[in-house]
């Protein structure tokens, strides 16, 4: 927290001598604050390593949206109107990126999200792009993994009705799982709920082979605890919303063996930048980086590359250049951004083993 405040003060003081201003909109407090902090660490590291573009200093303006949808939209307006940024990095959650992206689109400022995977985030937008894969990929990869690797024939799918990310992820999982020959049924919950025993009692009665929980880590860890207490012994599967150290701290033994789909694992990626990133990250923060760190890092680098390609700090030109980035070596792998603004990548499967995030396999849904 102290570091964050210090960074905030530093950033704000830098604003006075503005060169190229880039807004960063993240959830630094609230329900998914861990994601905001991790992304910010990645962005900060990238900024430290490559602080300049076109011979000018890049200034980052960090704004917190308290993990709220409305605040996400407000924060985007604020950095555009008040801080006059030329581009924005953020948000983390799809629901926030949808709210903030609409503002960025209207005001013609490019927004590059690091980890919002819902397809709607970039759909029919010119200014919103991302450096991660989309949920049709992630959901399908989870379905393939559940069916082929875990041998599951019947899945209980838990949907967070408040998160566009969750609804999208569940839909693509269901589609692929059914295509492969599996059955599923659905249960609902809501961000901020803590008591899931009623849904879980209902689900466990229907004897599923796997629980697929499509929320974020605070809910996933409580789900796992309560599912194990209610006697569910099968595997639990989740999306990239699971990957935060808090998952293991809160979930304890209950999340041991939990699988999730994600973007990056130091053991699963292989560009030269990955090595540099992992090394520098350990040097700066003293721990192994995760997917959110790597994606934040990549978002900054891709944006910087796009500004370079545009040749000037002009929002319109930057937005166009972002979608022309091809085969850029990032920490999470080779990044090619297609004309829809989505990155094309394969999906990494990790699991919690002995209290650590461990690499399991990589799945490219296009091959199935």
């Amino acid at each position, binding site marked *: 927290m102290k570091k964050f405040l210090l960074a905030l003060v530093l950033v704000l003081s830098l604003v006075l001598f503005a060169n190229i201003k880039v807004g960063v909109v993240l959830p630094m*407090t609230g329900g998914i604050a861990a994601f905001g902090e991790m992304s910010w660490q990645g962005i900060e590291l990238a900024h430290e390593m490559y602080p300049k573009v076109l011979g000018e200093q890049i200034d980052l303006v960090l704004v917190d949206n308290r993990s709220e949808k409305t605040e996400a939209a407000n924060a985007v307006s604020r950095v555009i109107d008040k801080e006059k940024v030329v581009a924005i990095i953020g948000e983390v959650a799809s629901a926030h990126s949808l709210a903030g992206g609409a503002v960025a689109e209207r005001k013609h400022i490019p927004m590059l999200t690091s980890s919002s995977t819902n397809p709607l985030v970039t759909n029919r937008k010119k200014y919103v792009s991302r450096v991660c894969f989309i949920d049709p990929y992630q959901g399908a990869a989870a379905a393939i993994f559940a069916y082929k690797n875990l041998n599951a024939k019947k899945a209980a799918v838990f949907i967070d009705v408040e998160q566009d990310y969750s609804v999208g992820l569940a839909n693509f999982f269901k589609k692929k799982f059914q295509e492969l020959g599996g059955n599923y049924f659905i249960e609902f919950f809501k961000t901020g709920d*803590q*008591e899931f*025993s009623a*849904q879980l*009692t209902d689900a466990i009665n229907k004897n599923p082979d796997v629980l697929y929980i499509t929320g974020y880590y605070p809910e996933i860890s409580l789900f796992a605890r309560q599912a194990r*207490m209610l006697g569910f012994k099968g595997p639990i599967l989740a999306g990239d919303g699971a990957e935060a150290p808090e998952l293991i701290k*809160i979930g*304890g033994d209950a999340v041991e063996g939990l699988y999730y789909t994600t973007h990056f694992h130091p053991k699963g990626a292989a560009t030269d930048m990955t090595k540099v990133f992992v090394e520098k990250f350990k040097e700066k923060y003293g721990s192994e980086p995760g997917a959110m760190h790597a994606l934040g890092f990549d978002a900054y680098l891709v944006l910087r590359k796009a500004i370079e390609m545009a040749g000037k700090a002009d929002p319109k030109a930057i937005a166009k250049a972002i979608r022309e980035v091809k085969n850029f070596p990032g920490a999470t792998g080779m990044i090619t951004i297609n004309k829809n603004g989505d990155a094309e990548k394969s999906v990494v499967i990790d699991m919690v083993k002995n209290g650590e995030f461990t690499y399991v396999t990589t799945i490219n849904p296009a091959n199935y």
Partner: protein
Amino acid sequence: MEVSALSGATFLQNLFNGLMFGGLYALLAVGYTMVYGILRLINFAHGDIMMMGVYFAFYASLMGSPLWLSIIIGVSGAAILGFLIDRIAYKPLRNAPRISALITAIGMSFFLESVAVVVFGAVPKSFTSVFNDNNKWIMDKTWNILDARIPVMTFLIFFVTAIIFLILFWIVYRTKIGMAMRAISSDIPTTSLMGINVDMVIGFTFALGSAMAAAGGIMWAMRYPNVFPYMGFMPGLKAFIAAVLGGIGSIPGAVVGGFLLGLLEIFLVALMPGAAGYRDAFAFIILIVILLIKPDGLLGKKSVVKV
């Protein structure tokens, strides 16, 4: 929306789920209702005092204190905090219109949340670290009863609720300070004429209510070990609804209201799984219906407003 039938074991499972969940609401609602009963103040900061209590216990154990000491530190820390909040924020407003105190309470709620964000950090912390290998079973152990799996926590919550209820009952109806509290609840100026230190009694009430919030919060954090600065907001609001449901100002009412609200929420989801996303909305609908039909709540006394 689809309504599903429940089998015997499922019903029993949900009954216990609901009772545990309701017990947590009841623990919080008791403190809420007590402050209201004495001061006619809806203390919106109650949930945030609960959060502070949980953090006190969390940091105490982080510094190496054993479980029992952490709980005592959490509970007494919250009690001191409650006393101070009354002195600093509510006491100067004793004779002001009631709405001023209400607004101050809302402000106090935001203040405590913001302080927690700055001091404790915004990232959720895990309450599991309060437990070591010897006493971890309290959190994780379940018993099989007639095909239903009942966490040990359920019985612990019942037990704590019962103990707190008895202590409170004893204080309010069998001690001098309890008598003073009851006197203040009906007429503050006259009570002070009787030579009773009204501010001291009100401060004591706040300390007691806050200690109960912390006790409830620690139980809450044992069941949902996700500790973060906004963790008290929803439980506080639900405890308020539970208190209104049972009859705000009435201590048995708060217990009944808490259990009832927990059961209603769980059975809403159990019977209509599709409605799980609307359970908070459902709780607020209960609040509105109660206020419309029986504003004094289930066990509340009809209040007479003196003109």
